[in-house]
Protein backbone atom coordinates (compact mmCIF):
# COMPACT_ATOMS: atom_id res chain seq x y z
CA UNK A 1 0.00 0.00 0.00
CA UNK A 2 2.79 2.39 0.88
CA UNK A 3 4.44 1.59 -2.44
CA UNK A 4 1.23 2.36 -4.27
CA UNK A 5 0.76 5.63 -2.41
CA UNK A 6 4.29 6.74 -3.24
CA UNK A 7 3.96 5.69 -6.88
CA UNK A 8 0.70 7.62 -7.30
CA UNK A 9 2.06 10.69 -5.54
CA UNK A 10 5.04 10.61 -7.87
CA UNK A 11 2.79 10.34 -10.92
CA UNK A 12 0.63 13.16 -9.63
CA UNK A 13 3.48 15.64 -9.29
CA UNK A 14 5.15 14.73 -12.60
CA UNK A 15 4.21 16.54 -15.78
CA UNK A 16 0.63 15.90 -16.81
CA UNK A 17 -0.22 14.49 -13.43
CA UNK A 18 -2.91 17.05 -12.85
CA UNK A 19 -1.66 18.10 -9.44
CA UNK A 20 -2.58 21.70 -8.82
CA UNK A 21 -5.33 21.78 -11.41
CA UNK A 22 -8.09 21.31 -8.89
CA UNK A 23 -6.36 23.84 -6.65
CA UNK A 24 -6.44 26.40 -9.44
CA UNK A 25 -10.06 25.52 -10.09
CA UNK A 26 -10.92 26.05 -6.42
CA UNK A 27 -9.23 29.43 -6.50
CA UNK A 28 -11.08 30.55 -9.63
CA UNK A 29 -14.48 29.32 -8.43
CA UNK A 30 -14.14 31.16 -5.16
CA UNK A 31 -13.04 34.48 -6.68
CA UNK A 32 -15.95 34.25 -9.11
CA UNK A 33 -18.47 34.47 -6.31
CA UNK A 34 -17.75 38.16 -5.57
CA UNK A 35 -18.14 38.86 -9.28
CA UNK A 36 -21.57 37.28 -9.19
CA UNK A 37 -22.78 38.49 -5.80
CA UNK A 38 -21.23 41.95 -5.69
CA UNK A 39 -18.30 43.45 -3.85
CA UNK A 40 -20.08 43.95 -0.51
CA UNK A 41 -17.63 42.39 1.95
CA UNK A 42 -20.21 42.15 4.69
CA UNK A 43 -22.52 40.08 2.51
CA UNK A 44 -19.58 38.06 1.19
CA UNK A 45 -18.39 37.19 4.66
CA UNK A 46 -21.85 35.82 5.35
CA UNK A 47 -21.81 33.45 2.39
CA UNK A 48 -18.08 32.70 2.68
CA UNK A 49 -18.38 29.34 4.50
CA UNK A 50 -20.87 28.03 1.96
CA UNK A 51 -18.86 29.37 -0.94
CA UNK A 52 -15.62 27.82 0.24
CA UNK A 53 -17.31 24.49 1.00
CA UNK A 54 -19.06 24.28 -2.36
CA UNK A 55 -15.85 25.35 -4.08
CA UNK A 56 -13.84 22.67 -2.28
CA UNK A 57 -16.46 20.08 -3.14
CA UNK A 58 -16.46 20.96 -6.83
CA UNK A 59 -12.66 21.01 -6.93
CA UNK A 60 -12.65 17.50 -5.43
CA UNK A 61 -15.21 16.34 -7.95
CA UNK A 62 -13.11 17.58 -10.84
CA UNK A 63 -10.20 15.31 -10.03
CA UNK A 64 -12.15 12.14 -9.30
CA UNK A 65 -12.27 10.75 -12.81
CA UNK A 66 -8.49 10.37 -12.91
CA UNK A 67 -8.40 8.13 -9.86
CA UNK A 68 -9.00 4.89 -11.72
CA UNK A 69 -9.32 5.88 -15.38
CA UNK A 70 -5.60 5.77 -16.20
CA UNK A 71 -4.93 2.56 -14.30
CA UNK A 72 -7.92 1.01 -15.99
CA UNK A 73 -6.82 1.96 -19.49
CA UNK A 74 -3.24 0.78 -19.27
CA UNK A 75 -4.10 -2.51 -17.59
CA UNK A 76 -2.52 -1.71 -14.24
CA UNK A 77 -5.80 -2.36 -12.46
CA UNK A 78 -5.99 -5.90 -13.88
CA UNK A 79 -2.49 -6.55 -12.64
CA UNK A 80 -3.19 -5.12 -9.20
CA UNK A 81 -6.25 -7.33 -8.81
CA UNK A 82 -4.07 -10.35 -9.47
CA UNK A 83 -1.34 -9.12 -7.12
CA UNK A 84 -1.08 -9.85 -3.38
CA UNK A 85 -2.39 -6.37 -2.62
CA UNK A 86 -6.05 -6.56 -1.52
CA UNK A 87 -8.26 -4.44 -3.73
CA UNK A 88 -9.67 -2.72 -0.64
CA UNK A 89 -6.10 -1.62 0.07
CA UNK A 90 -5.80 -0.26 -3.46
CA UNK A 91 -8.98 1.76 -2.92
CA UNK A 92 -7.77 3.14 0.39
CA UNK A 93 -4.41 4.09 -1.11
CA UNK A 94 -6.08 5.84 -4.01
CA UNK A 95 -8.34 7.78 -1.66
CA UNK A 96 -5.39 8.79 0.51
CA UNK A 97 -3.49 10.03 -2.52
CA UNK A 98 -6.54 11.93 -3.70
CA UNK A 99 -6.83 13.59 -0.33
CA UNK A 100 -3.13 14.43 -0.18
CA UNK A 101 -3.14 15.94 -3.67
CA UNK A 102 -6.55 17.66 -3.51
CA UNK A 103 -8.20 17.87 -0.10
CA UNK A 104 -5.18 18.87 1.94
CA UNK A 105 -3.91 21.58 -0.47
CA UNK A 106 -7.41 23.06 -0.49
CA UNK A 107 -7.21 23.42 3.26
CA UNK A 108 -3.95 25.33 2.93
CA UNK A 109 -5.42 27.65 0.31
CA UNK A 110 -8.50 28.43 2.42
CA UNK A 111 -7.00 31.17 4.67
CA UNK A 112 -6.05 33.27 1.65
CA UNK A 113 -9.42 32.87 0.00
CA UNK A 114 -11.08 33.62 3.33
CA UNK A 115 -9.40 37.03 3.28
CA UNK A 116 -10.76 37.71 -0.20
CA UNK A 117 -14.25 36.90 1.05
CA UNK A 118 -13.97 39.21 4.03
CA UNK A 119 -13.64 36.61 6.74
CA UNK A 120 -12.09 37.70 10.03
CA UNK A 121 -8.73 36.06 10.70
CA UNK A 122 -10.05 34.49 13.86
CA UNK A 123 -12.95 32.96 11.95
CA UNK A 124 -10.90 31.28 9.23
CA UNK A 125 -9.89 28.65 11.77
CA UNK A 126 -13.44 27.25 11.78
CA UNK A 127 -13.34 26.74 8.04
CA UNK A 128 -9.95 25.09 8.24
CA UNK A 129 -11.09 22.71 10.96
CA UNK A 130 -14.30 21.80 9.18
CA UNK A 131 -12.44 21.19 5.92
CA UNK A 132 -9.78 19.07 7.60
CA UNK A 133 -12.44 16.83 9.10
CA UNK A 134 -14.67 16.85 6.02
CA UNK A 135 -12.42 16.56 2.97
CA UNK A 136 -11.29 12.97 3.74
CA UNK A 137 -14.95 11.95 3.40
CA UNK A 138 -15.13 13.73 0.04
CA UNK A 139 -12.10 11.75 -1.13
CA UNK A 140 -13.31 8.29 -0.17
CA UNK A 141 -16.88 8.89 -1.39
CA UNK A 142 -15.44 10.20 -4.63
CA UNK A 143 -13.20 7.15 -4.94
CA UNK A 144 -16.28 4.97 -4.65
CA UNK A 145 -17.92 6.99 -7.43
CA UNK A 146 -14.79 6.69 -9.55
CA UNK A 147 -14.83 2.92 -9.02
CA UNK A 148 -18.47 2.79 -10.12
CA UNK A 149 -17.69 4.55 -13.38
CA UNK A 150 -14.25 3.03 -14.01
CA UNK A 151 -14.02 1.86 -17.58
CA UNK A 152 -16.91 3.92 -18.86
CA UNK A 153 -16.29 6.23 -21.74
CA UNK A 154 -17.38 9.76 -20.90
CA UNK A 155 -17.97 8.77 -17.29
CA UNK A 156 -17.27 12.26 -15.98
CA UNK A 157 -20.75 13.70 -16.01
CA UNK A 158 -22.26 10.46 -14.77
CA UNK A 159 -19.72 10.45 -11.97
CA UNK A 160 -20.89 13.88 -10.81
CA UNK A 161 -24.54 12.85 -10.81
CA UNK A 162 -23.72 9.75 -8.77
CA UNK A 163 -21.34 11.35 -6.30
CA UNK A 164 -22.98 14.68 -5.54
CA UNK A 165 -26.02 13.23 -3.71
CA UNK A 166 -23.61 11.20 -1.57
CA UNK A 167 -21.79 14.42 -0.67
CA UNK A 168 -24.89 16.00 0.88
CA UNK A 169 -24.36 14.94 4.53
CA UNK A 170 -20.70 15.98 4.47
CA UNK A 171 -21.54 19.33 2.92
CA UNK A 172 -24.36 20.03 5.36
CA UNK A 173 -22.41 19.15 8.50
CA UNK A 174 -19.17 20.73 7.27
CA UNK A 175 -20.63 24.06 6.19
CA UNK A 176 -22.84 24.08 9.28
CA UNK A 177 -19.82 23.69 11.56
CA UNK A 178 -18.01 26.56 9.85
CA UNK A 179 -21.08 28.80 9.92
CA UNK A 180 -21.85 28.13 13.56
CA UNK A 181 -18.28 28.84 14.52
CA UNK A 182 -18.28 32.14 12.67
CA UNK A 183 -21.58 33.17 14.25
CA UNK A 184 -20.15 32.39 17.65
CA UNK A 185 -22.23 29.31 18.46
CA UNK A 186 -20.80 26.06 19.74
CA UNK A 187 -19.39 23.89 16.96
CA UNK A 188 -18.67 20.68 18.78
CA UNK A 189 -21.85 18.87 17.72
CA UNK A 190 -21.46 19.57 14.03
CA UNK A 191 -17.76 18.73 14.07
CA UNK A 192 -18.53 15.45 15.79
CA UNK A 193 -21.28 14.64 13.31
CA UNK A 194 -18.98 15.59 10.43
CA UNK A 195 -16.25 13.30 11.76
CA UNK A 196 -18.88 10.61 12.15
CA UNK A 197 -19.77 10.85 8.47
CA UNK A 198 -16.08 10.76 7.56
CA UNK A 199 -15.35 7.72 9.70
CA UNK A 200 -18.43 5.87 8.50
CA UNK A 201 -17.46 6.55 4.89
CA UNK A 202 -13.93 5.28 5.44
CA UNK A 203 -15.29 2.21 7.21
CA UNK A 204 -17.77 1.01 4.59
CA UNK A 205 -16.84 2.51 1.24
CA UNK A 206 -13.50 0.72 0.63
CA UNK A 207 -15.42 -2.55 0.55
CA UNK A 208 -18.15 -1.19 -1.68
CA UNK A 209 -15.61 0.41 -4.02
CA UNK A 210 -13.52 -2.77 -4.24
CA UNK A 211 -16.59 -4.83 -5.08
CA UNK A 212 -17.72 -2.51 -7.86
CA UNK A 213 -14.16 -2.38 -9.24
CA UNK A 214 -14.15 -6.17 -9.52
CA UNK A 215 -17.49 -6.00 -11.31
CA UNK A 216 -16.23 -3.35 -13.70
CA UNK A 217 -13.07 -5.29 -14.55
CA UNK A 218 -14.70 -8.48 -15.72
Amino acid at each position, binding site marked *: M*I*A*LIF*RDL*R*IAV*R*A*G*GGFGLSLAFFFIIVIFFPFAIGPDLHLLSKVAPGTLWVGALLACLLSLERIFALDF*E*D*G*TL*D*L*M*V*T*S*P*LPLEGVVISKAIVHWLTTGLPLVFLTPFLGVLLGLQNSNVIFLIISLIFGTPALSIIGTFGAALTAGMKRGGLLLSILVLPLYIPTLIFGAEAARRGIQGFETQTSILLLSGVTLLSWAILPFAAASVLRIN*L*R
Partner: protein
Amino acid sequence: MAISIESLSVSRGGVNLLQGVDIELENGQAGILRGPNGVGKTTLLRALAGLQPVESGTIKCSLEDICYSGHADGVKPTLTVQENLEFWANIFGSPSIREVAEKFMIIELLNTKVGNLSAGQKRRVGLARLGLTGRQVWLLDEPTVSLDETSVKIFGNIIKDHLSEDGCALIATHIDLGLENSAQIIDLLEFQSNSGDLSSSNEAFL
Protein backbone atom coordinates in the same frame (compact mmCIF):
# COMPACT_ATOMS: atom_id res chain seq x y z
CA MET B 1 0.24 -30.64 -10.76
CA ALA B 2 0.75 -26.93 -11.31
CA ILE B 3 -2.61 -26.18 -12.83
CA SER B 4 -5.55 -28.39 -13.61
CA ILE B 5 -8.74 -27.28 -15.32
CA GLU B 6 -11.76 -29.52 -15.57
CA SER B 7 -14.74 -29.07 -17.89
CA LEU B 8 -14.49 -25.32 -17.68
CA SER B 9 -17.05 -23.17 -19.47
CA VAL B 10 -16.60 -19.44 -20.06
CA SER B 11 -18.73 -16.71 -21.66
CA ARG B 12 -18.17 -13.25 -22.98
CA GLY B 13 -20.80 -10.64 -23.78
CA GLY B 14 -23.67 -12.98 -22.94
CA VAL B 15 -22.51 -15.66 -25.38
CA ASN B 16 -20.90 -18.92 -24.33
CA LEU B 17 -17.50 -19.28 -26.00
CA LEU B 18 -15.81 -22.39 -24.64
CA GLN B 19 -17.21 -25.50 -23.07
CA GLY B 20 -15.69 -28.50 -21.38
CA VAL B 21 -12.15 -27.16 -21.41
CA ASP B 22 -9.76 -29.70 -19.81
CA ILE B 23 -6.15 -28.67 -19.39
CA GLU B 24 -3.53 -30.19 -17.13
CA LEU B 25 -0.07 -28.77 -16.83
CA GLU B 26 2.73 -30.34 -14.77
CA ASN B 27 5.44 -28.31 -13.11
CA GLY B 28 8.01 -27.46 -15.73
CA GLN B 29 5.55 -27.73 -18.55
CA ALA B 30 4.21 -25.07 -20.87
CA GLY B 31 0.86 -25.00 -22.62
CA ILE B 32 0.27 -23.05 -25.78
CA LEU B 33 -3.25 -21.94 -26.58
CA ARG B 34 -4.08 -21.88 -30.26
CA GLY B 35 -7.18 -20.93 -32.10
CA PRO B 36 -8.49 -18.19 -34.39
CA ASN B 37 -9.31 -14.70 -33.16
CA GLY B 38 -12.43 -14.55 -31.05
CA VAL B 39 -12.31 -18.18 -29.99
CA GLY B 40 -11.90 -17.17 -26.36
CA LYS B 41 -8.20 -17.26 -25.52
CA THR B 42 -8.21 -13.99 -23.64
CA THR B 43 -11.48 -14.83 -21.91
CA LEU B 44 -10.10 -18.18 -20.76
CA LEU B 45 -6.91 -16.63 -19.41
CA ARG B 46 -8.78 -13.87 -17.61
CA ALA B 47 -11.11 -16.42 -16.06
CA LEU B 48 -8.11 -18.45 -14.86
CA ALA B 49 -6.58 -15.32 -13.37
CA GLY B 50 -9.78 -14.72 -11.41
CA LEU B 51 -10.62 -11.55 -13.32
CA GLN B 52 -13.93 -12.82 -14.57
CA PRO B 53 -16.40 -15.42 -13.37
CA VAL B 54 -16.62 -18.87 -14.94
CA GLU B 55 -19.91 -20.42 -15.96
CA SER B 56 -19.08 -23.88 -14.66
CA GLY B 57 -16.20 -26.26 -14.10
CA THR B 58 -13.28 -26.28 -11.70
CA ILE B 59 -9.86 -24.70 -11.68
CA LYS B 60 -7.35 -26.37 -9.40
CA CYS B 61 -4.69 -23.77 -8.82
CA SER B 62 -4.27 -21.24 -6.09
CA LEU B 63 -4.77 -17.66 -7.25
CA GLU B 64 -1.68 -16.84 -5.25
CA ASP B 65 0.47 -18.88 -7.62
CA ILE B 66 -0.87 -17.19 -10.71
CA CYS B 67 0.72 -14.29 -12.49
CA TYR B 68 -1.31 -12.81 -15.32
CA SER B 69 -0.04 -10.64 -18.12
CA GLY B 70 -2.55 -9.22 -20.56
CA HIS B 71 -2.59 -7.14 -23.71
CA ALA B 72 -1.82 -3.94 -21.83
CA ASP B 73 1.56 -3.53 -20.16
CA GLY B 74 0.43 -1.71 -17.04
CA VAL B 75 3.44 0.57 -16.99
CA LYS B 76 3.27 4.27 -16.28
CA PRO B 77 4.62 6.58 -18.99
CA THR B 78 5.68 9.37 -16.63
CA LEU B 79 7.78 7.10 -14.43
CA THR B 80 11.18 5.69 -15.29
CA VAL B 81 11.66 2.00 -15.99
CA GLN B 82 13.32 1.59 -12.62
CA GLU B 83 10.47 3.28 -10.77
CA ASN B 84 7.94 1.12 -12.57
CA LEU B 85 9.78 -2.07 -11.74
CA GLU B 86 10.46 -1.04 -8.15
CA PHE B 87 6.76 -0.53 -7.64
CA TRP B 88 5.91 -4.07 -8.67
CA ALA B 89 8.88 -5.45 -6.78
CA ASN B 90 7.52 -3.77 -3.67
CA ILE B 91 4.03 -5.12 -4.22
CA PHE B 92 5.27 -8.67 -4.71
CA GLY B 93 7.95 -8.38 -2.06
CA SER B 94 10.81 -9.36 -4.30
CA PRO B 95 14.26 -8.04 -3.44
CA SER B 96 16.20 -6.96 -6.50
CA ILE B 97 15.15 -5.58 -9.83
CA ARG B 98 18.63 -5.50 -11.36
CA GLU B 99 18.80 -9.21 -11.97
CA VAL B 100 15.43 -9.23 -13.66
CA ALA B 101 16.27 -6.14 -15.67
CA GLU B 102 19.41 -7.83 -16.94
CA LYS B 103 17.49 -10.93 -17.90
CA PHE B 104 14.96 -8.94 -19.88
CA MET B 105 17.65 -6.78 -21.50
CA ILE B 106 16.39 -3.48 -20.17
CA ILE B 107 19.25 -2.74 -17.81
CA GLU B 108 20.49 0.19 -19.89
CA LEU B 109 16.96 1.63 -20.02
CA LEU B 110 16.47 1.76 -16.23
CA ASN B 111 16.69 5.54 -15.99
CA THR B 112 14.63 6.31 -19.07
CA LYS B 113 11.04 7.42 -18.79
CA VAL B 114 8.70 4.78 -20.13
CA GLY B 115 6.94 7.42 -22.21
CA ASN B 116 10.12 7.76 -24.28
CA LEU B 117 10.46 4.05 -25.04
CA SER B 118 9.44 2.27 -28.22
CA ALA B 119 6.48 -0.10 -28.15
CA GLY B 120 8.76 -3.14 -28.08
CA GLN B 121 10.92 -1.78 -25.27
CA LYS B 122 7.80 -0.93 -23.32
CA ARG B 123 6.56 -4.47 -23.81
CA ARG B 124 9.82 -5.80 -22.39
CA VAL B 125 9.37 -3.63 -19.30
CA GLY B 126 5.85 -4.99 -18.94
CA LEU B 127 7.08 -8.56 -19.24
CA ALA B 128 9.89 -7.96 -16.76
CA ARG B 129 7.18 -7.75 -14.13
CA LEU B 130 6.76 -11.53 -14.52
CA GLY B 131 10.23 -12.04 -13.18
CA LEU B 132 9.50 -9.89 -10.16
CA THR B 133 6.42 -11.74 -9.01
CA GLY B 134 8.16 -14.96 -8.03
CA ARG B 135 4.98 -16.78 -8.93
CA GLN B 136 4.85 -20.22 -10.40
CA VAL B 137 2.09 -20.19 -13.00
CA TRP B 138 2.42 -17.63 -15.76
CA LEU B 139 -0.67 -16.82 -17.79
CA LEU B 140 0.47 -14.91 -20.84
CA ASP B 141 -1.85 -13.31 -23.35
CA GLU B 142 -0.02 -12.58 -26.63
CA PRO B 143 3.22 -11.72 -24.84
CA THR B 144 5.24 -11.18 -28.01
CA VAL B 145 3.17 -8.36 -29.50
CA SER B 146 5.54 -5.67 -30.84
CA LEU B 147 8.66 -7.63 -29.89
CA ASP B 148 11.36 -8.03 -32.56
CA GLU B 149 12.89 -11.37 -33.51
CA THR B 150 15.77 -11.21 -31.05
CA SER B 151 13.53 -10.19 -28.20
CA VAL B 152 11.16 -13.04 -29.00
CA LYS B 153 14.06 -15.47 -28.83
CA ILE B 154 15.27 -13.99 -25.55
CA PHE B 155 11.80 -14.13 -24.12
CA GLY B 156 11.48 -17.77 -25.24
CA ASN B 157 14.65 -18.53 -23.30
CA ILE B 158 13.33 -16.73 -20.25
CA ILE B 159 10.24 -18.92 -20.33
CA LYS B 160 12.46 -21.99 -20.66
CA ASP B 161 14.43 -20.89 -17.61
CA HIS B 162 11.21 -20.41 -15.73
CA LEU B 163 10.07 -23.91 -16.70
CA SER B 164 13.38 -25.43 -15.67
CA GLU B 165 12.87 -23.89 -12.23
CA ASP B 166 9.67 -25.92 -11.88
CA GLY B 167 7.51 -23.09 -13.14
CA CYS B 168 4.70 -23.46 -15.58
CA ALA B 169 3.21 -21.26 -18.28
CA LEU B 170 0.02 -21.09 -20.26
CA ILE B 171 0.53 -18.91 -23.30
CA ALA B 172 -1.84 -17.64 -25.95
CA THR B 173 0.31 -16.93 -28.97
CA HIS B 174 0.57 -17.36 -32.72
CA ILE B 175 4.33 -16.97 -32.76
CA ASP B 176 6.95 -19.68 -32.46
CA LEU B 177 8.65 -19.18 -29.11
CA GLY B 178 10.94 -22.17 -29.50
CA LEU B 179 8.96 -24.13 -26.95
CA GLU B 180 6.86 -26.11 -29.37
CA ASN B 181 8.75 -29.39 -29.01
CA SER B 182 8.25 -29.73 -25.28
CA ALA B 183 5.04 -27.78 -24.85
CA GLN B 184 1.52 -29.04 -24.81
CA ILE B 185 -0.37 -27.50 -27.72
CA ILE B 186 -4.00 -26.85 -26.91
CA ASP B 187 -6.29 -26.10 -29.79
CA LEU B 188 -9.25 -24.24 -28.34
CA LEU B 189 -11.36 -24.95 -31.42
CA GLU B 190 -11.97 -28.38 -29.91
CA PHE B 191 -13.76 -26.80 -26.99
CA GLN B 192 -15.70 -24.21 -28.92
CA SER B 193 -19.37 -24.03 -27.96
CA ASN B 194 -22.08 -24.65 -30.49
CA SER B 195 -23.01 -21.41 -32.12
CA GLY B 196 -26.08 -20.08 -30.41
CA ASP B 197 -25.11 -21.23 -26.93
CA LEU B 198 -25.69 -18.36 -24.57
CA SER B 199 -24.30 -17.53 -21.15
CA SER B 200 -26.30 -18.94 -18.25
CA SER B 201 -27.46 -15.43 -17.44
CA ASN B 202 -28.99 -15.03 -20.90
CA GLU B 203 -30.17 -18.64 -20.93
CA ALA B 204 -32.38 -17.93 -17.92
CA PHE B 205 -34.63 -15.77 -20.08
CA LEU B 206 -35.34 -18.40 -22.74
